[in-house]
């Protein structure tokens, strides 16, 4: 066998393979086949999105499955951004997100998208200061200064001023932030942007803000931030309340618009929601950070399930609508145990209307 023929054969096979690849690329899109209603009336729903409501959604899915054994829902916690993307690309039947979708994204969907608020949560500042038993008091100005690198030590005069009874150590502060894109970061930076001009100018409100280089460390996910704060003395980080509670870490009292230092609790988060009900727009997309009123916790937010108003598959659409309806009524009783706050009654009314407006080719999915 001559070397030449081998070479020629090799080239020809390579060319054939390249052409085959070309055909493969121009072929049809993957994953177009729908697998709903495969076995006698069983409906499979795929949801994906925010990690913050994962504990309550898992509980709901589980409990809803007991009542409706023919519906099986699978919720993947992939992050708010991924949830929005999955809905837009229709790789999931519903998306979940902590922050509302942008106008541009909603427009790009081509079909109307509904925002269904499900529960409320709070972002807390948790810290690792062994010697301190009393909860720390923080203003948005001080939080901003810590994350901008203006306040470097725990015994800074600005921190002492709000915490006269606490002996703060003479150690460097290690701020921990989210390195990945996250709804938690969006809520946190939204609060700081509303209240601190310097923050708004230097960092702003973003799911993935540009942190000041050389200040602090980044970690992936709520549990990543939790892990870093837990193991690093003198650190401070922001996480969803659920995660701080589950890890027995303290959370700071935050000064609200009314001037009080408030702990993140069911009541204070509900109060923030109640304070903003009047201002809630028709599409229910709203930020409730830095809300007015007494006893309001200022870093709170709704978390949303995103669905198409007009569902393509009648069985799936009905199952999703039923699930949402069940969640905001019967599902309510599981909310408090997991440290979320339930929706205010006025908001539940608005959500009911939204759920009842879901259709399948023009026909309503639920008879109210």
């Amino acid at each position, binding site marked *: 066998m001559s070397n030449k023929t*081998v070479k020629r054969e090799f080239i020809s096979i390579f060319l054939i393979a390249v052409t085959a690849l070309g055909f493969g690329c121009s072929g049809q899109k993957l994953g177009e086949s729908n697998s709903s209603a495969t076995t006698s009336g069983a409906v499979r729903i795929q949801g994906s999105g925010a990690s913050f409501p994962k504990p309550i959604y898992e509980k709901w899915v589980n409990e809803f499955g007991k009542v409706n054994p023919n519906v099986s829902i699978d919720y993947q916690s992939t992050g708010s951004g991924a949830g929005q993307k999955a809905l837009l690309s229709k790789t999931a039947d519903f998306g979940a997100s902590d922050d509302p979708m942008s106008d541009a994204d909603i427009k790009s969907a081509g079909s109307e998208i509904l925002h269904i608020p499900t529960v409320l949560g709070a972002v807390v500042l948790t810290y690792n200061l062994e010697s301190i038993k009393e909860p720390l008091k923080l203003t948005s100005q001080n939080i901003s200064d810590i994350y901008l690198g203006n306040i470097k030590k725990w015994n800074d005069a600005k921190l002492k001023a709000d915490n006269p009874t606490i002996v703060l150590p003479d150690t460097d502060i290690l701020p921990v932030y989210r*390195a990945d894109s996250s709804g938690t970061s969006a809520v946190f930076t939204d609060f700081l942007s509303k209240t601190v001009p310097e923050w708004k100018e230097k960092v702003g409100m973003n799911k*993935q803000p540009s942190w000041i280089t050389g200040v602090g*460390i980044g970690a992936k996910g709520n549990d990543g931030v939790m892990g870093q704060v837990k193991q690093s003395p003198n650190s401070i980080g922001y996480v969803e309340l659920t995660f701080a509670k589950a890890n027995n870490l303290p959370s700071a009292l935050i000064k609200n618009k009314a001037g009080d230092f408030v702990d993140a609790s069911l009541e204070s988060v509900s109060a923030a929601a109640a304070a903003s009900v009047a201002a809630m727009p028709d599409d229910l997309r709203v930020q409730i950070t830095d809300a007015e009123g007494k006893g309001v916790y200022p870093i709170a937010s709704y978390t949303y399930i995103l669905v198409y108003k007009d569902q393509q598959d009648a069985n799936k659409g009905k199952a999703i609508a039923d699930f949402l309806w069940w969640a905001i009524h019967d599902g309510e009783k599981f909310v408090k145990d997991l440290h979320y706050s339930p929706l205010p009654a006025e908001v539940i009314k608005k959500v009911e209307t939204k759920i009842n407006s879901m259709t399948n080719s023009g026909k309503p999915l639920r008879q109210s």
Partner: protein
Amino acid sequence: MAQTGAIGDKIFRTVLLIAAASILLIVVAIFYMMVQNSMPTLQRFGIGFLTGSEWRPAQEEFGALPFIYGTLVSSLIALILAVPISLGIAIFLVEQAPAKIARPIAFMVELLAAIPSVVYGLWGIFVLAPFIRNYLGVFLQDYLGFLPFFQGRLTGIGMLTAGIILALMITPIITAVVRDVLEAVPTTQREAALALGATKWETTTIVLGNAASGIAGAVVLGLGRAIGETMAVTMVIGNSPQISASLFEPANTIASLLAANFAEATDKIYMSALIEIGLVLFLVTFVVNAFAKLLIMSVGDNSSSSKHV
């Protein structure tokens, strides 16, 4: 019979050729796909993407330099720590240890290779980071603090921690391959050296010289894993895109950036930037591998010439 044999050979050769061509095709296809998908940032930033040192997705500003730096430096630390240890283990196992000891040690090394990287990451956060913060870092600052590498704030999270974790992760691979390479060196060479009156040490250097290209191959394999490691690095490196001489400062690597952000990249331009930085990783790996191949070739020449002596 000769006829059927010839046809059989032809089929056999074709099958092998298809297999060989497919690997080339896959590489080309990956490269093509990445270039295609990173077009928006390729056109918008050009070479500035590689030289820029600011990474601000919110402002649509993308500079990959801190990530390239972090990738190379963390892998370099890993190699500096892992190569001598791996060589030591492998030489001990092949040249010195009695079978009774060699077998359990070899088993332990293989066990290390089987541990998932997220476990290394957890161990890094909860054991290694406090150890560096409280002991190793303090020690380095006390005795080598005049070097820029060991200055600054000690948090336990950063480039050094990532490098040490990576060293741990690549040690088993390098050890296993070097052991195989050393075992492949004919026993007759050792016997010849010993017969000429060489000491154990001298014999080992001769064996090492003849195994040089294989050892270099093992190192490249380890380097490949270090460059591409994601989860364990993300957990201990601090994920801050900055270039700092201090090894105690947080940094970030390309693979770690991709792992943390790919799923959430919703903007077109951001997605493109991430794919382009993936392309950079692809090229960095390619260059490092090519460089190592050159190194192996030069070392290989030396060893073959020494064989004639």
